């Protein structure tokens, strides 16, 4: 699973990165949202972890852009903001989860693994792939179009 982390504090970014790498996720990062649009378009991440106040792009803008590019992307916003109205706006924009600072890194990992689990179970429920019919009993049609032997 590909995760894109956008943070303005380099050490915090590194900490999140290390912890996610421990969980065997592929992690990509952007400081202050620099070139984040290109990253999203090229990497197509499954999860984006971001904050709201960034230097190169606003958090809202980033969420909207990510959702327009990858509608299924799971977005986690880490913020200090407590105001319900802003959190509702974030959810309207496409954020899936808002985590308030100070936060537990374990909590972050928990949300990602939960999403990962959901995603894998959903994939399993999808219709069987095309190879499966090969194992079915072959239907033989005679020249007259009947199935009768």
């Amino acid at each position: 699973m590909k995760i894109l982390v956008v943070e303005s504090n380099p050490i915090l970014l590194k900490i999140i990165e290390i912890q996610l790498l421990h969980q065997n996720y592929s992690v990509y990062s952007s400081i202050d949202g620099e070139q984040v649009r290109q990253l999203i378009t090229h990497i197509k991440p499954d999860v984006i972890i971001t904050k709201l106040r960034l230097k190169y792009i606003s958090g809202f803008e980033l969420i909207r852009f990510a959702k327009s590019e990858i509608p299924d992307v799971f977005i986690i916003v880490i913020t200090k903001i407590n105001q319900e109205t802003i959190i509702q706006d974030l959810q309207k924009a496409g954020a899936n989860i808002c985590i308030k600072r100070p936060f537990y890194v374990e909590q972050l990992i928990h949300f990602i693994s939960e999403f990962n689990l959901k995603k894998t179970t959903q994939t399993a429920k999808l219709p069987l792939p095309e190879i499966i019919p090969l194992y079915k009993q072959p239907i033989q049609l005679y020249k007259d179009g009947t199935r009768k032997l």
Partner: protein
Amino acid sequence: MVHANYNIFQQFILLYTPSIEVLQRAAVLFFGISVILLIIIYSNTYIEKRNFLLKIMIQKRMTQWIAEQITTTETPAADIPKRISKILNSKYGKKIITDELITLKKNLQGKEAANIIYLYIELGLKNDSIKKLYSKKWYIKAKGINELYTMDQRDMLKVIYKNSNSKNDLVRTEAQTGLVHMYGFDGLRFLNVISNPISEWQQVKLLAQLQNQQPDNVFYQKLNNWLQSKNDSVVIFSLKIAATKLIHQVIPIIVQNCLYHNNSMIRKTAIESLIFFPEHINTLSLRKIYPTEIKQNKLSILSVLQKLGGQQDINFLKEIILKEEIDIAKSAMITLLKIAPEMINWKEHLLIQKNKVTQYTLHALDEIAFQ
């Protein structure tokens, strides 16, 4: 007239035309000042740029190591790499590392936060903060307090507590914030001793800090004492705590003391705090104090009655509508209609009374009816 003025101007110039020597001296002086200013501006820019680059360099050098130490599952390493020790030898380097650790502590919780505190102590940054705490300069002292409480250094409680009544605003507010940050409601014990006022902004900040906490069962006893404090700002702040945390045990003190306090601001806060206790309040106490109150507080009482009032207040409100000045009458009319919507029929009664109040209250009536 213009001609005369021109002559005076000409004479003035002739009389006061400076000699070439004076002009030369002025030019030299001007040149000198410009050069000094340029040097100051240039050196300031140079220092800022140097510090900025130094900061980036230090951040680059320490980011990986600090992040590894914070994320480690075991105790962070006691051996400090040479490149970090070098940074710690300079004052500026220490400042940057401390600032970074403080920012991280404000962002993280759990195991990572514990590791940050461990690093803060191991790198000798706590001693620096303590030095700052004892500094004579108020801004350094405030910074020291901030660092220590952010890093949960509870052993420094006594010194921080002493500063909670400091003469300096910033030192005082930092110390108070620190106590509440570390001890929650117990940290409010500085309210027993402070003689300096708590600013409105500081009250808001402290209440925000206590937002997700609940006081213990005996907290109301302390609150009762603070509600009778000689420091008016302590009384106002206590009223706000009682209201936001719904501590109904203090209602007798609010009704008996605060509603009759000499300070009108305390009375106003007390009136407004009652709105949070609709089940424990008898509106009689508000009706009693109404006649002696100032206009602002009268309006507050009417606004509180919108939520707490009942049938027993109708005659009292009617009386106000007919007797009081326009603003108050209008507010009373709104209150009356909120308590008893059927009083809209009273409009006809009002029409008979031909006075100014009637006209304005009719406007209020129409507004409410429209709503």
